[in-house]
């Protein structure tokens, strides 16, 4: 464990201690209903929330819906029937989140929504990353790098889009276009590849897109979890090349997971938009516990995570601000 990791670990312990000190005198029972732990982001978010709550002396009832929105609604109803003091959910999608928030508020149970926002932001405690801004920061970095390397060329960008039923995916796509449209003289019309948040779909569609357009200069994936899939498509074509070598494609993602951290360190990826997972987790917990303490049954608040872009240029300074790099330093990818 290096010094930075030790310092970060200490900082997290201190933050946790501060949070515990600020927690209500009476221990609360919190229902934590999540849709799955499919990606590193959700694993880390789950760990941050459950560990901190338990260390604060609170009881956590965990419910995994395994990507079934109806099941999650039933699980939340079950939690309400058990008389929990508050609910934190990671919903399956924006629409089901609205139903679940209404269900909790109708039963006077405070509820916080973590990271995946409902389509209606007016009800519940909503902790959400500013996906458009984070994506824009990451894409802007690689756009500038690509232009600097090829100032006279018209460059071809490509975006792997998530499930367009997910507000996060829509926000990330908007952020990508916001950045690319800043340089109309340097970038051609972007190629869009649908992934539906599914690696198999992304593999098939990206393979078709790269076959049709082999001269891609810039690639943005709406989630870091697709980097192994991207590698599978690019590597056999000799397009998976590290920074500084001929044929390197400028690449960025969004999430800030351990795989992205490793790939930035290795030079294959140039940037990733980072959701400040620890900020989001702590905000959700603090807000729900404050509402319980105040006896507020229907708290409504939107807490926005501005995020940042970890890039090849700032990784030396900001590496340990990214949750994925913290996990990586703890051997997450070796497990």
């Amino acid at each position: 464990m290096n010094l930075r990791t030790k310092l970060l670990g200490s900082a997290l312990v201190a933050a946790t201690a501060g949070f515990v000190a600020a927690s209500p005198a009476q221990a609360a029972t919190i229902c934590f209903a999540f849709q799955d732990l499919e990606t590193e982001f959700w694993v880390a978010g789950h760990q941050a929330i459950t560990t901190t709550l338990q260390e604060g002396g609170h009881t956590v009832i965990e419910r995994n819906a395994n990507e079934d929105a109806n099941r999650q609604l039933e699980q939340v109803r079950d939690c309400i029937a058990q008389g929990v003091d508050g609910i934190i959910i990671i919903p399956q999608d924006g629409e089901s989140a609205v139903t679940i928030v209404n269900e909790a508020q109708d039963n006077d149970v405070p509820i916080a929504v973590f990271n995946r926002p409902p389509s209606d932001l007016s009800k519940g405690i909503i902790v959400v990353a500013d996906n458009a801004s984070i994506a824009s920061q990451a894409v802007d970095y690689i756009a500038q790098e690509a232009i600097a390397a090829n100032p006279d060329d018209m460059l071809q960008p490509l975006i792997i889009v998530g499930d367009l039923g997910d507000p996060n995916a829509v926000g990330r796509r908007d952020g990508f276009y916001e950045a690319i449209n800043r340089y109309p003289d340097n970038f051609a019309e972007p190629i869009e590849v649908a992934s539906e948040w599914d690696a198999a779909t992304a593999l098939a569609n990206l393979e078709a897109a790269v076959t049709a357009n082999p001269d891609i200069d810039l690639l943005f994936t709406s989630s870091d979890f697709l980097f192994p899939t991207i590698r599978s498509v690019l590597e056999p074509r000799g397009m998976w090349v590290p920074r500084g070598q001929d044929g390197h494609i400028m690449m960025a993602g969004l999430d800030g997971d351990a795989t992205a951290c490793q790939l930035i360190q290795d030079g294959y990826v140039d940037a990733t938009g980072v959701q400040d997972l620890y900020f989001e987790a702590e905000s959700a917990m603090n807000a729900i516990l404050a509402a319980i303490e105040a006896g507020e049954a229907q708290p409504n608040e939107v807490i926005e995570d501005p995020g940042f872009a970890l890039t090849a240029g700032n990784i030396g300074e900001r590496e340990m601000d990214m949750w994925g790099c913290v996990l990586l330093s703890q051997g997450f990818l070796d497990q």
Partner: protein
Amino acid sequence: MTGPLASNPVGRSFDPAALAARYSAVLILLLIIAGFAIAEPAFLSADTMGNTVKQASFIGIAAVGMVFVLLTAGIDLSVGSIMYLGPLLAGIAMRDMEVGVTGALLISVLAGAAMGAINAFFVVALRIIPFITTLATLFLFRGFGAYLTSSRQLDFPDEVRGFGLATVFGLPMPVIVFAIIVAAAYVILVHTPLGRQIYAFGNDAEGARKAGLPTARLQAFVYIASGMCASLAGFVLISQIGRLDTGFGEGREFSVIAAAVLGGASLFGGVGGAFSAVIGALTIQTVQAGLVYTGINLYLQPLLLGLVIFIAVLLDGLRQARLDDSRRRIIRPFVSTPASMSSPKSRTTKEPSP
């Protein structure tokens, strides 16, 4: 050859309309290719065609297994979950027991066979209808996988990716595996008594039972075959990506069933063949690749994919109705004579689907 590519069973003179009806699945595929090629000529390049076949092999391998099940008028909704759990067990064996790629492949296929056997047990021994049985195991198998992993992703060693990305004589490994499975299915269905018995059972289950065919074993075989193919399909795809997440294979049962039916397999049993899976999987993948090539708006892509599948199935339904009509006219005079087990006699007694 069986199903949509079968030769004319009654030996009539050349009839272009009948020929077109018989080969409608192939014609639909060719029309789709032609349509996209007109919109984007590069769509016809060898690279594109090669990639389309490669990407179709994942659904195609599973669809071969599904054809076996559909031939008996059954259905297997658990294939998506088997695609997930089979490779997962293989990956865990690689991680914890240092099993090699070949061993992992074997474990994956055996796990698929075991899951198929579970389906078969409920369908054959307990006589629970296949739809309900496989709907239950869809959740059971995925739930077991989620329990094993706590919903976390599983990374496979680089050797597995080496297998998935390998080529033999320029052919990608997924395509080779697909070809082997199709060839094996073709031989079983066309050149063995087992295949003929499956067709007989699908055409007339009660008749097959009365004729003394081992119907329980036949049904068990098709579900085990489906499980093996689904698990193998999952392994083949994972060997390209290298990472298995909880959502892997989710909802793929619909693509697999659609591929089998698009290729000419009937949901009512007795019609279809190994090449049904090939044609169907190629059709679906061609549409998906074509939508990417032509740069269709992402919001419109699911709509267009659904529309193409709907039109293809509709045309196939019309083709089936026409074939039923033509067979009825020809075969009726010979109804009084004993028919061979593989003859289409039973089809003549069925009313065309509305």
